[in-house]
């Protein structure tokens, strides 16, 4: 019934330059034999003397497979690298992969399977908020541990989830400050796909624009998911002549939106556009020529120029092919296994309660993350940087702005 996907299928490569430096005493990692399984696993998880089993739960089929492919690839890469370094507490990580099939109850069902039957020590997975919301009660009931990679709307904080993507205020606010200052923007047009993440993000953006920046929202528009006709919306935008178009259109609609924008003559020469839903993954479909000069706010861009990232990109391409692109979520997914490793080693145990406790100390940090330094906040979200990238024709972005490290605030006062 289950498959153990072997993540180690690619040849052993030049040793990873990437080494997780964790703020944990070396003594813990030094000798696995000194850590009997009975001590580090008191709750009956699937852990032997030399292996520990984790779950990966993403959509391999259905409409979301497009987006979730990168995340599961990154997770497998991280796990492979950790194993190459000797595993966690002397135990190699084994993976059980399940398909969420883009279907929310399936996520709940598979989560239950992973936790109840397979007794996995941690799960890396979910992509959409809906799938996380469906799986969440299962993780809370069965006391599992989920590392969730996507930037999302916030308004959630569960003991059993570590959020490795940004919550909405972290992603949005600094980008808006930047555009207000840099582009002297006063009027904004908000457009998004019609579901919870764009709506919540737009709500936060509107409050920030009106209350903090003193600007004006001249229009707010939502299109059904999957809709591909933007002619009327574009005319409406033309009528309103906003300084900035602020967009959160997703999936197939996203491609249609940018293609039609370009066809309507609205290009970066005339119009500033800031989006929170375009990563390198999306650009593949949209085409760099349609995006050239527009801005995305993300915490990570593949083009980021630092040693960590270079090593990461090289390793990713080696494992998954030269043509791979790496978007924000892919990078965030990559952080999951490393954060878990750090927390387990700090706790000296795989027990979920202890790992969570270690995670909540505020001392789990990664200095080697591709995006740069990140630290886990006691509220289960990451301290991270907001970046504004300008898209080039080749599908890569140039980072034009970087914020300070921002504290995560899933329940932002004044923005609800």
């Amino acid at each position, binding site marked *: 019934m289950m498959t153990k996907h072997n993540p180690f299928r690619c040849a052993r490569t030049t040793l990873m330059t990437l080494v997780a430096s964790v703020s944990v005493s070396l003594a813990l990692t030094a000798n696995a034999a000194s850590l009997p399984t009975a001590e580090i696993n008191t709750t009956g998880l699937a852990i032997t003397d030399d292996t520990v089993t984790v779950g990966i739960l993403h959509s391999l089929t259905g409409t979301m497979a497009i987006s979730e492919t990168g995340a599961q690839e990154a997770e497998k890469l991280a796990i492979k690298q950790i194993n190459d370094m000797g595993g966690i507490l002397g135990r190699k990580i084994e993976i059980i992969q399940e398909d969420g099939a883009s279907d929310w109850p399936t996520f709940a069902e598979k989560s239950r399977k992973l936790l109840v039957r397979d007794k996995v020590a941690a799960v890396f997975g979910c992509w959409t908020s809906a799938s996380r919301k469906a799986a969440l009660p299962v993780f809370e009931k069965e006391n599992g541990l989920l590392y969730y990679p996507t930037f999302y709307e916030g308004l959630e904080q569960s003991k059993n989830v570590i959020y490795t993507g940004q919550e909405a205020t972290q992603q949005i606010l600094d980008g808006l400050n930047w555009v207000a200052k840099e582009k002297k923007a006063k009027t904004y047009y908000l457009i998004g796909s*019609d579901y919870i993440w764009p709506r919540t993000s737009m709500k936060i953006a509107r409050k920030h624009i009106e209350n903090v920046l003193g600007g004006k929202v001249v229009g707010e*528009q939502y299109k059904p998911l999957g*809709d591909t006709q933007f002619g009327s919306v574009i005319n409406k935008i033309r009528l309103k002549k906003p300084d900035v178009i602020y967009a959160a259109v997703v999936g197939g609609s996203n491609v249609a939106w940018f293609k039609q924008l370009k*066809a309507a003559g609205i290009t970066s020469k005339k119009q500033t556009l800031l989006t929170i839903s375009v990563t390198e993954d999306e650009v593949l479909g949209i085409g760099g*020529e349609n995006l050239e000069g527009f801005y995305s706010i993300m915490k990570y861009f593949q083009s980021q120029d630092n040693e960590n990232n270079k090593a990461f990109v090289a390793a990713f391409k080696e494992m998954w092919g030269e043509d791979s692109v790496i978007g924000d979520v892919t990078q965030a997914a990559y952080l999951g296994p490393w954060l878990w490793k750090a927390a387990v080693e700090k706790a000296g145990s795989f027990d979920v309660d202890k790992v969570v406790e270690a995670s909540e100390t505020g001392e789990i940090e990664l200095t080697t993350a591709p995006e740069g330094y990140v630290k886990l906040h006691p509220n289960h979200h990451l301290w991270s940087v907001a970046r504004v990238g300008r898209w080039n024709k080749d599908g890569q972005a140039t980072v034009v702005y970087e914020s300070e490290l921002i504290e995560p605030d899933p329940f932002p006062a004044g923005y609800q």
Partner: protein
Amino acid sequence: MLGGYTYGELGSILAMQGFAGFSLFSVLLLMALGLAIIFGQMGVINMAHGEFMAAGAYTTYLIATLTEQYFPAFMPYYFVFAIVVAFFVAGALGYLAEFALIRHLYKRPLDTLLATWGLSLIMQQSYRSIFGAREVSPTLPEWLLGSYQPTDTIDIPLNGMFVLVLTAVVTFAVFYLMFKSRWGLRVRATTQNRVMSGAVGINTNKVDRYTFALGCGIAGIAGAAFTTIASTGPTTGTLYIVDTFMVVVFGGAASLFGTIASAFSIAQAQSILEFFISGSMAKVYTLVTLVLILMFKPEGLFASKVRR
């Protein structure tokens, strides 16, 4: 509405909004033409229609990629070539589907719905296995990008104009084929009275197969054309299928004129509503209105009263 705008500006918006409506009209019509033949003339409920469109789109993508790699000089012209190939690829797939599936089901229209739904699942998974799960877009020739500017304030999208012209050409071709050619006569004869047509020497099997293939081929053209406005993924087809059926049913299944009128009215309603209210609600209102009208006029807009 006039507050702060000049008449010139409003005029420009009006012109562009009018074009947006026309553009949507041509998109809907192009999607629906193939189905109008398959469903309207043959009575086959082809739930895989969207997947045949995707076949055309993927063909275009493939040709674009190959051209870019091996004949970069040919890039400005490949698109026209791609449309023709998309027609034949989707048509050939349709030919196969008719041969393997549809011909056994002419007497069970509701069962064609289930069988073609199965077919659509298989086609989706094939696309995923062949082209990957990610959405793709072909690199478009320069002349399809950007806009035409008759005045400073008016931008007419080139891709929209292209689809409009293409739709006009395909529509005229279909009309010529169905109503002026000898072959069209055979198709109409077969759909009206299969037994009698067979008796007067029409090879009805052949007519069926080519008609179905033609419908699918037109879907392929539509798919190729849509690569100019949207992307293509394994499940792209499912996005279009309900809209397509609505256009055909609302127009009165058996009437090609009805299909045109219905595409026109749906497109205008949708695009005008969308200008004033949110996109989601515009869609809801349009669909609710269609359902209500269909309840009062179940045979669609343009079905003639016939003696039964």
